[in-house]
């Protein structure tokens, strides 16, 4: 396997003094797909937010290295430009700002960071078209304001479209499958798969084995009460689907 992309060591985080992440250790290499599963409230979204740099969470201990750099010392926008992408569990509406303008601003920041010339308007529109086709989103959607009045499924597709536009090194998908109909699930998963290569990695947060039939993980982790309590291959997801989380909770208590 490839080089280490992300290395999380003993990550602890709190919100308003309440401890949420309690010593996370996780290593993701280039070319890998990791899945994180776990009961509601176990800290999955918190982990994603902390990696993306959400300031309301306070990191109280631990270290995160991303492509050899100290991730936690970077501002959220730097992390994005360095290649960390978070598909939000609950995407945010930005009224009046078209997806086209939003992405234009984002892409130009990313290119500048890489020392690349800005795209001309026609190159940019070509890129938009290409990526829209890749993730099979309706062309019209891009003319609408970011997430404004979008259905739940449309919001999720829009996240994957943005991911395609920014071509991250590490994509964190926080329940991108929830709220999708069967066809949309397949389309979104296909999109994610098409974006996968030997130099990037995907961290999929999900409650359902179903998604993992499409996006096949190399490693599955179970997050419970702020800790990764079990790690296994893709069969672990099947086992969880069948048995639920009680047996794991019991194992932890022992």
């Amino acid at each position, binding site marked *: 396997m490839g080089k280490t992309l992300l290395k999380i060591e003993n990550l602890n985080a709190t919100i308003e003094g309440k401890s949420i992440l309690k010593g996370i250790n996780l290593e993701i290499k280039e070319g890998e797909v990791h899945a994180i599963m776990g009961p509601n409230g176990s800290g999955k979204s918190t982990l994603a937010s902390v990696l993306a740099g959400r300031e309301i969470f306070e990191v109280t201990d631990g270290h995160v290295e991303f492509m050899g750099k100290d991730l936690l010392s970077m501002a959220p926008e730097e992390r*994005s430009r360095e290649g960390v992408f978070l598909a*939000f569990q609950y995407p*945010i509406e*930005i009224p009046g700002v078209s997806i086209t303008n939003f992405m*234009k*601003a984002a892409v*130009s*920041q990313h290119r500048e960071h890489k020392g690349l010339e*800005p795209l001309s308007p026609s190159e940019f529109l070509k890129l938009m078209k290409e990526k829209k086709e890749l993730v099979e989103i309706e062309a019209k959607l891009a003319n609408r304001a970011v997430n404004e009045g979008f259905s739940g499924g449309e919001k999720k597709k829009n996240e994957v479209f943005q991911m395609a536009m920014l071509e991250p090194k590490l994509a964190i998908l926080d329940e991108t499958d929830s709220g999708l109909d069967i066809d949309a699930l397949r389309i979104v998963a296909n999109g994610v798969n098409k974006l996968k290569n030997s130099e990037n990695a995907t961290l999929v947060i999900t409650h359902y084995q179903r998604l993992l039939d499409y996006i096949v993980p190399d490693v599955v982790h179970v997050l419970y009460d702020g800790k990764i309590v079990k790690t296994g291959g893709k069969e672990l997801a099947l086992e969880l689907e069948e048995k639920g989380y009680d047996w794991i909770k019991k194992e932890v208590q022992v």
Partner: protein
Amino acid sequence: MSTLDDNKILEEYSEKEYEAGFVTEIESDVFPIGLDEDVVRAISLKKNEPEFMLEFRLNAFRRWKTMIEPEWAHLKYQKPKFQDISYYSAPKNMPKYNSLDEVDPELLATFKKLGVPLDEQKVLAGVAVDVVMDSVSVHTTFKKNLEEKGIIFCSISEAIQEHPELVKKYLASVVPAGDNFYAALNSAVFTDGSFAYIPKGVRCPMELSTYFRINQANTGQFERTLIVADEGSYVSYLEGCTAPSRDENQLHAAVVEIVAMKDAEVKYSTVQNWYPGDKKGKGGVYNFVTKRGICKGDNSKISWTQVETGSAVTWKYPSTILKGDNSVGEFYSVAVTNNFQQADTGTKMIHIGSNTKSTIISKGISLGESNNSYRGLVKINPKANNARNYSQCDSLLIGSKCGAHTFPYIESENPSAVVEHEATTSKVSEDQIFYCNQRGLDTEDAISLIVNGFAKEVLNQLPMEFAVEAQKLLSLTLEGSVG
């Protein structure tokens, strides 16, 4: 959205201070400070005005002396000391130039710093620019071209000399000399401004634009603008302003009058960027403006679009009197206040004719410790059958120390009227900013994007090149608002 060049706009981010904060050294001919009848006479004499103008001014001055400054606006400020202002300042020996090469290079350098596109490009783009430097018009382009169509576009002083019959007929026909405190003062002492007349059936082939700039320390600026659109004509007029920084508060009390005859349409767009004062609230321009249009004939239309980002204190209510049947009034406004800026702005739509329609879209954005108020009056007179009004007033707050206030007044005296008013107040949320951050935008860019999105309905009303300028101004105003 249009294909505005967002990148270019974002590029300009780095400079935090007010960019136009410099003073041009051009010889000026300045009156001593103070105001009395003799000063009014001297202004009129200096400008070699006909008798009717002197009388008009003296009459206005006498009215002004009996009036008191209005107190009802949602504003707090140190009242200007009217006797400490010099009421006349004209650049000396101003010849009229045929080409830019002949213009004082320092003046050109000033315009360059301001980004006033008074260069060949702008000229090629087809914009006739009548620049008001302090109070006297110094440059007019494309005038010939306009003359061929019978369009008159010149300084108001020139109009008083060359077209006294038009000035006499229309001046103060929409804003009477005694209309309000500031309008009366303006009527008494205005030194220049612009005049446009579009003859019957003529569609003005280009945007008419004037760039105002306050330049002389302690010189109050009293612009007077008069636009007359004769039957079936159309004109789009752009007004853009900027001023250098000063310690003393500067007073600006302009009057703009628009007359739209039968089937005529006037679109009046403003981007206002006067010095708002420093971060502590010191200095800045006081902007007390009276803008009013009358849809005099049937089927006429007046549309006001304004982007207000400047001034320490703004008091401004572009209004439309809908006299002709089926006439239409529109008001689109974005007002941004930052630091200690105060804006009290809005509109009045006075429905007199039948089937008259008005639309008000007001977007207020407050940051820092600023206060932003919308004040609007929709008045439906008894004879205005089937009048319609739709008003929408949205406020966006950035931070927790600023304020947004909405004062809608509706006076309907005709039961067939339909008046709708909607108002919303929202905050730029942490979630929105984080979402943008996560896509690679820093917080300042994020706010700018969110604000531009919020103001989109209004920005879309502006002519293209003005919209770019407006976006740039919005972004500049938001700078330093973070953290």
